[in-house]
């Protein structure tokens, strides 16, 4: 190539050389760190003895006709206060995982664990999962695939209850404080006759451009791909801590599942007081 002053300059070729093999070899140290991080962030499901035995026998999966997943403090506490406090529910497992937001070390079982599975003693095919911990984006699909990998998917119905702040609700109409909290639903195409488009829906469908994010979105996507009927009910609330009015908003959802789940007409006062008081004491920001 000739330049302005007349000297000839050799030009480097800008052709891309497809030499991917060299680029893929990362230093061993980086690989080790990446492997350690992956191991640390792995989602591990720990089931009770009888369930573990059934699953480890190879082809067997846990029979499940209804899976109710509660994501968020109000959704999870709603199930604790209105459903789970009765003696009909056994804890059958929990999911242990670590990310930057989890406060306790992974592997902690018991009522304080962030993700617990319960099974109904009278109808063992009904499972409830309470998720109160934050699950990171890279762990969402891992959790979904591992949990659904343990469940029998034929004739499975999935209901997801999730919380969302009303500040994230987008609407052309004014959302007055008197209408909050309210429910909106989103379902997979495998749902028919039971969702928002039918006359029996407990709430209207989620309007555009609002979206469902996080674990409910991962579960809905999985169910859509695998043709599993699933509905997510998102409760928009102006309160960030567990609150009895927000919890009661979920009632119509489970009333429809009345044959499957027994819903107490009144909340269990002791359980409710425990959750609400604990949340209240934590912050002095609001009065």
């Amino acid at each position, binding site marked *: 190539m000739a330049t302005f002053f007349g000297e000839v300059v050799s030009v480097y070729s800008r052709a891309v050389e497809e030499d991917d093999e060299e680029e893929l070899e990362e230093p061993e140290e980086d690989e080790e760190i990446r492997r350690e991080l992956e191991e640390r962030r792995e989602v591990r499901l720990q089931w009770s003895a009888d369930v573990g035995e059934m699953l480890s026998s190879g082809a067997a999966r846990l029979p499940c006709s209804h899976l109710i997943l509660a994501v968020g403090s109000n959704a999870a506490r709603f199930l604790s206060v209105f459903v789970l406090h009765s003696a009909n529910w056994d804890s059958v497992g929990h999911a242990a995982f670590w990310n930057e937001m989890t406060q306790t070390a992974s592997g902690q079982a018991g009522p304080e664990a962030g993700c617990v599975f319960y099974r109904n003693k009278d109808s063992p095919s009904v499972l409830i999962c309470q998720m109160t911990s934050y699950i990171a984006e890279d762990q969402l699909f891992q959790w979904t695939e591992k949990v659904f990998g343990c469940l029998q998917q034929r004739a499975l119905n999935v209901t997801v209850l999730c919380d969302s702040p009303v500040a994230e609700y987008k609407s052309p109409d004014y959302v007055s*404080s*008197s209408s909050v909290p309210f429910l909106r639903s989103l379902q997979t195409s495998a749902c028919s006759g039971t969702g928002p488009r039918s006359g029996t829906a407990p709430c209207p469908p989620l309007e555009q451009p609002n979206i469902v994010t996080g674990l409910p979105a991962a579960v809905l996507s999985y169910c859509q791909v695998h043709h599993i009927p699933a509905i997510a009910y998102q409760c928009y609330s102006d*309160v960030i801590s567990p*609150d*009895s*009015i927000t919890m009661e908003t979920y009632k119509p959802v489970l009333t429809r599942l009345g044959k499957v789940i027994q819903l107490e007409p009144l909340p269990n006062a002791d359980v*409710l*007081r425990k959750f*609400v*008081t604990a949340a*209240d*004491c934590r912050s*002095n*920001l*609001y*009065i």
Partner: protein
Amino acid sequence: MPICKDIVVLGVEKKSVAKLQEERTVRKICALDEHVCMAFAGLTADARIVINRARVECQSHRLTVEDPVTVEYITRYIATLKQRYTQSNGRRPFGISALIVGFDYDGTPRLYQTDPSGTYHAWKANAIGRSAKTVREFLEKNYTDEAIAGDNEAIKLAIKALLEVVQSGGKNIELAVIRRNQPLKSKEIETLVAEIEKEKEEEAEKKKQKKST
């Protein structure tokens, strides 16, 4: 909270405090002057600023005009302050709603509500904060001339309205009463709560008897 002819009642749900925290430093009701007081819901720090400004304005008014503020005047001052913060660059609105109550110098009881936008309206009875909708609906149904005929009836109406939404019963309710020419007083409510619960039980029993006959 409701207005009767001779008293205005302010009822709040006490905030749960941590074990080591001084309960008396966590208060939702405060006096702006001898005859005006305010209850608020929202950001505690914003409330402190608004209250301080309102108190200074009350005294400034007394000094310059030689008359105490009317409830409407101080409400308008607070609302104007809030509105200014919605229209200034680099500032955010005050995150509190307030109920301002008191008696004017002609003896009329007043109740005003302000919100972060800076609007204010007069009310006969109102509620703000968590579950305000439920309490307001209760007041709309039960605010009758009979319910506010006397002081005790008005106080009971306020307690009943709060008991609809308070999660731990009467022990978490704090009540303040302001009477004509008297400063703000907090009211012991244990006996009243017991009376209300007894009345509820009696009503429930009467209903059962009616059903059985």
